[in-house]
């Protein structure tokens, strides 16, 4: 028998989480990520884990806070409007330096928006999930295999840096089916001497908290956290370069937009246009190095997004505006077609997109 299984992106996330040792899942149903909860509901009782459908997204994220305080691997998932509701909890998790994994299978917005795919939560995930100075590690898969891989990676990074990692997918990635291999070597969980697991009267008690009574103490905790963020920016950037070696035009996209872009790039190459792709896999930390390298030889960067242009701001910063950066996008649940991206590439080759 094949060592692969055929899975939806949402199922791949759920099974990978279980393989990574997650035994606690809290969620609230919302399309297009409901299969994660449905899968957990079926599997968790069979392996001695906890599946709990909370009364709201807010309740679910605070249950995550509770389990994370004990040092156990814990996860919640939702889609765009539900992630907004979790915002307060995400800030509290950051303030208490707790590791957790949060999945966002994005849908169109703003507001209740729609149920079809979108990437318009980029700002929210990478810059402003909630109040206060904090970051989340943001991982952007672009295949069902990567949905599983990034889930495992997300747990590891969250534990290593004591913070929330988010898998930022979209409705198409969640719903599409592809063969996946779930053959992971999961290391021993790292020591968490800060966890509130009971002192057994053998050690001083641990406190998990995000309230500081003295402002200088609060400042110190922020400085320490940002020192850690600096280490992450130096060590954890992930990206893929596709046909960039001789590229004169650079397309950049993540997730589902990167798949569409690859199709367009393959077609453009057939027509003799030298074009390549930079695909960020971590959206925070944002991989700046490939962009500054690209500006030495490309004449335009095209950012393909399912948003009104969010990642494009980081692309402009990373490329230091040395070459024009244009936007090729669809929104509201629509996906750019390979033809649309190909047209943008052709325009760039002819003299530039406006």
């Amino acid at each position, binding site marked *: 028998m094949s060592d692969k299984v055929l899975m939806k992106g949402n199922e791949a996330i759920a099974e990978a989480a279980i393989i990574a040792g997650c035994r606690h899942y809290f969620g609230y149903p919302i399309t297009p990520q409901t299969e994660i909860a449905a*899968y957990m509901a*079926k599997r968790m009782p069979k392996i001695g884990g906890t599946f709990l459908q909370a009364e709201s997204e807010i309740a679910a994220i605070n249950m995550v806070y509770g389990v994370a305080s004990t040092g156990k691997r814990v996860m919640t998932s939702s889609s765009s409007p539900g992630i907004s509701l979790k915002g307060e909890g995400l800030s509290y998790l950051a303030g208490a330096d707790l590791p957790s994994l949060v999945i966002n299978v994005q849908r169109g917005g703003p507001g209740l928006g729609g149920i079809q795919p979108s990437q318009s939560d980029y700002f929210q995930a990478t810059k402003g999930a909630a109040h206060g100075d904090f970051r989340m590690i943001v991982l952007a898969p672009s295949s069902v295999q990567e949905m599983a891989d990034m889930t495992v990676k997300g747990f590891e990074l969250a534990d290593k840096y004591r913070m929330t990692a988010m898998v930022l997918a979209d409705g198409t990635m969640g719903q599409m089916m592809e063969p996946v291999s779930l053959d992971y070597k999961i290391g021993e969980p790292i020591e968490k001497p800060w966890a509130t697991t009971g002192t057994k009267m053998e050690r001083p008690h641990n406190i998990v908290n995000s309230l500081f009574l003295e402002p200088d103490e609060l400042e110190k905790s922020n400085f320490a956290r940002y020192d850690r963020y600096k280490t992450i920016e130096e060590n954890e950037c992930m990206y893929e370069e596709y046909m960039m070696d001789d590229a004169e035009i650079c397309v950049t996209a993540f997730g589902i937009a990167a798949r569409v872009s690859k199709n367009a790039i393959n077609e453009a190459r057939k027509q003799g246009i030298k074009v390549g792709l930079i695909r960020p896999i971590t959206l925070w930390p944002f991989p700046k190095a490939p962009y500054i390298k690209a500006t030495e030889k490309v004449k335009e960067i095209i950012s393909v997004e399912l948003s009104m242009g969010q990642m494009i701001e980081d692309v402009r910063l990373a490329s230091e505006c040395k070459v024009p950066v244009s936007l090729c996008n669809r929104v509201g649940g629509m996906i750019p077609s390979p033809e649309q991206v190909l047209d943008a590439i052709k325009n760039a080759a002819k003299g530039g997109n406006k």
Partner: protein
Amino acid sequence: MKYNYKRITLLSGHYGSGKTNIAVNMAFDLKKNFHNVTIADLDIVNPYFRTKDSQTELEQSGIKLICSEYANSNVDIPALPQEMYSVIDDKSQRAVIDIGGDDRGALALGRYSKGIIEENDYDMLFVINCYRPLTCDVQTTLEVMREIENAGRIKFTGIVNNSNLGEETTADDILDSLDYASDISKATRLPIVATCVKEELFDVLSERISNLFALKLQKKII
């Protein structure tokens, strides 16, 4: 496909087992021999992949499509098509009914199963795929099957082996699935009415597997 279609063919199974794709292919297959063919989308669970995705091809072939007017829109509610009763009442047509995944999807069928059973000219086919993790062995597959029967208030009459790994499926993957399908057939005493393969594998396998059904993939790959 060499298969004696009843007036109504119902397709059900675990979500992601391939019901919708098989339903559309069967409707085209039926159209070769029957004038009046209808395909009905009774999926109240999945708002993403629907029979409606193949609307243009179906209409061009003269196949009538019945589906919720909200399919593929942002109206995320489990609405049933009002024309659904015509499939049961108008006995001049051949129909394929695509039922939503799992027991939750089959709940909608319970609304119509009485009329279907009374007429007694139907097949209720259980679509299986051993490469789906929640139906990867006989026992879990049988659990899903019982749940669907209870929710849909109708018993299965046959099995469609649709074991596949999507685009990557090889002939060996299909051959490896035959024991699984045969074990389910034995445990349920239901016949395997078809083994589905993508078109490219049909010639390689047609002499080794009886009742092979070549599937044209209806969905767009991104």
